[in-house]
């Protein structure tokens, strides 16, 4: 007697903006393989069971940042989350929390894209030396200052995990702040003052109450909570310096 092929059940959030009615959950039964990630199961559904399911994916190796989803309520990259972490229990898959939903598992990214531009995520210099002058010298120690903050995938898991972003959509949010910090800490950059307007205003770092979920869910080991903490500290130091300056003070 042959054993039946093991299967696992996925409950997937469905929403179609053009005439699909209210959102629902749809249950699919898919083959269970120990080496399958949740994305493999979703691709199986798309290819074999239901071509109407919409979601984003691309690299399937945890680096492009496309396939973030809520998996049993936790924001995760579906290409880096294995079925075996849940089997034999059903797996509930939803679009990333705190974002408007475009369709099914596809969220609207417009807000982040706007905020990313606002933090000026590029090298700002008063004077740009010619390329013929060669590279800026940057020691491995100087590189280490900002390196971890440069690892951000823009995958949006931290925004989905952030309770403050859920409450205050104007909050700049963990990834944008971490990337601003990445450039502030880069020895080649002179743009900290010009980023400070966005970082230190009411919707910048001060909106954060240091829950720290952003750091917990980050798939690239970035620590946005530390970036926020460090910016708060340096901003406070700026104020104190200004207050102590002769003729200064708020």
């Amino acid at each position: 007697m042959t054993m039946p092929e093991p299967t696992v059940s996925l409950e997937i959030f469905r929403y179609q903006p053009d005439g699909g009615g209210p959102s629902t959950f749809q249950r699919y039964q898919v083959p269970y393989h120990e080496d399958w990630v949740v994305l493999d199961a979703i691709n199986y559904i798309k290819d074999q069971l239901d071509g109407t399911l919409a979601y984003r994916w691309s690299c399937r190796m945890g680096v492009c940042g496309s396939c973030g989803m809520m998996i049993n309520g936790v924001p995760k990259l579906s290409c880096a989350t294995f079925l075996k972490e849940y089997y034999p229990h059903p797996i509930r898959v939803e679009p990333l929390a705190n974002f408007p939903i475009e369709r099914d598992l596809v969220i609207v990214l417009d807000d982040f894209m706007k905020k990313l531009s606002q933090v000026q995520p590029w090298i700002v210099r008063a004077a740009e030396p010619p390329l013929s002058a060669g590279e800026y010298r940057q020691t491995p120690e100087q590189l280490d200052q900002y390196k971890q903050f440069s690892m951000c995938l823009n995958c949006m898991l931290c925004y989905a995990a952030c309770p403050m972003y859920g409450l205050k959509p104007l909050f700049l949010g963990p990834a944008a702040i971490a990337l601003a910090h990445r450039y502030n800490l880069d020895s080649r950059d002179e743009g900290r003052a010009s980023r400070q307007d966005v970082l230190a205003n009411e919707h910048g770092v001060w909106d954060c109450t240091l829950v720290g979920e952003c750091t917990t869910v980050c798939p690239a080991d970035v620590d946005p909570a530390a970036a926020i903490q460090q910016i708060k500290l340096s901003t406070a130091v700026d104020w104190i310096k200004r207050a102590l300056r002769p003729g200064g003070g708020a």
Partner: protein
Amino acid sequence: MTESIPSHEHDIIVVGGGAAGLRAAIAVAQADPTLDVAIVSKVYPMRSHTVSAEGGAAGVIKANDSFEAHCVDTISGSDWLADQQAVEAFVEEAPQELLQLEHWGCPWSREPDGSIAVRPFGGMKIERTWYAADKTGFHLLHTLFQTSLKFPSIRRYDEWFVTKLLVADGRCCGITALELRTGVMHLLAAKAVIVCTGGAGRIFPFTTNAAIKTGDGMGLAYRAGVPLKDMEFVQYHPTGLPGTGILITEAARGEGGILVNKDGYRYLQDYGLGPAEPWPRLRAMELGPRDKLSQAFIYERQKHRTLDGPHGDYVLLDVRHLGEEKIDQKIPFVRELARRYVGIDPVREAIPVRPVVHYMMGGIHTDLDGATPMAGLYAAGEVACVSINGANRLGSNSLPECLVFGARAGRHAARFVRQHSPGDRATLTTLARDEARRIAERYLSKKGGRERIAGLRTEMQTAMESGAGIFRDDATLRQTCATLADLQGRMGQLRLDDHSRSFNTELTAALELEFMVDIAETVAHSALARTESRGSHQRTDYPRRDDARFLKHTLVYRTDGAPRTDLLAVGITRWPPGERVYGR
């Protein structure tokens, strides 16, 4: 979809937002900030496949290196099929492009004194590969994307799927694109279009390539009547993870990793890459070129000296002797990927690997400025064939290729558009309406049809692997060509589950499959026509290189029937064809 088509106008449209596309757009903005340039991409730029490049980017910067040496490595690596004028331009400009990325903030790994660090790579006689640990493509892409945000003349259309190039009076004057969010077809007119959509690895079943690498740009140009060049040359990277095809970077070998068979024997020494000792040694053994390493795997399999796993045969990539500290410092992503996807910690165990489709040496036929034979149409990066890669690309040449030729295409297009007016709007509108109607009738309003996308896609991929893989011959290629012709016919029978508008990824998958079947045909027919063996194209029925007949590029054209192939002379300047020598 036959209602009026919303339209937009730009000076230049860049299709694709990876390294080549972003560099091209920035080059336009730098050349002339009054020019209005748009980037149209089916994904947000930071999702582009450049993000997956790991090992590094070659550029001559160190005192022990030379222009001559990088040229020689590239040309011999190409099995003399690269155009030497293109290689010279590439080698000359790569260092300044990499320096430009450094000035824009790329976190290149450094020497203790703060200068750029370089590492050895396969087929290179001198270590010249710049790297950002083993996420070089990721950092390069994010640096370019973030830098692009500071140029106000760059407008982006994120998640717009380009379906067709619009040609009026023989000139490329725009595109049609589906806005994925709404499903609405738009007309985007421009005086020049630069195609930078990358490769087509997904025509094969087992590839390092991301899901988006479906040959769209090659298909767009081919359908517009522009020839593709050297499509038979498909690079297999020797070290992919079994099952997923996830890439384990060549940097693992650059840093000292070795390849062994089931007996623990460094088998590459049996295939013209040895002797094994002393080690490490450049242009030898594990630091040989990718074509020869992937072919050696097949010979080992024939000798029953590979290991047998649930996802096929494999050999072992062993980096344990590097030690945990060096692994974590130089190739941390290798460790992360191996642990996550095969459950192996490279610090303690050797990594199972097998050859995997990685890169298309061929692409849209262009000159040194990225210009195609069609006025107003440019291409750069993997989608193009300049050619610097010939029959086999060297690892770490592709990222600087995107930068050098992306920038060249951008600058040239900026000059071109100053001398040209927009195409005739009435003609473009008619073309766009026809395209919208084609897609609606073929997919959205169609009743019936019995083929599913996944079924046809799998048949195509299986045909490519069985007939047009690492080793090919006349019979297997003819079989593959026949299967692909049959699939072309059955494409008309595709049935979609999804007839809605918003974010219809089944529709885009169907359009991608159209491009892929076209591109698969160009690969198989070009391979059939080249009756010699050179670089990555190995014909068991014609095992020798034949310079008398085939020191030539293949050009392939679309016809109403099977693709038509032609030959084009290779540009030779200072390096006459010779024997490829490694290991000695």
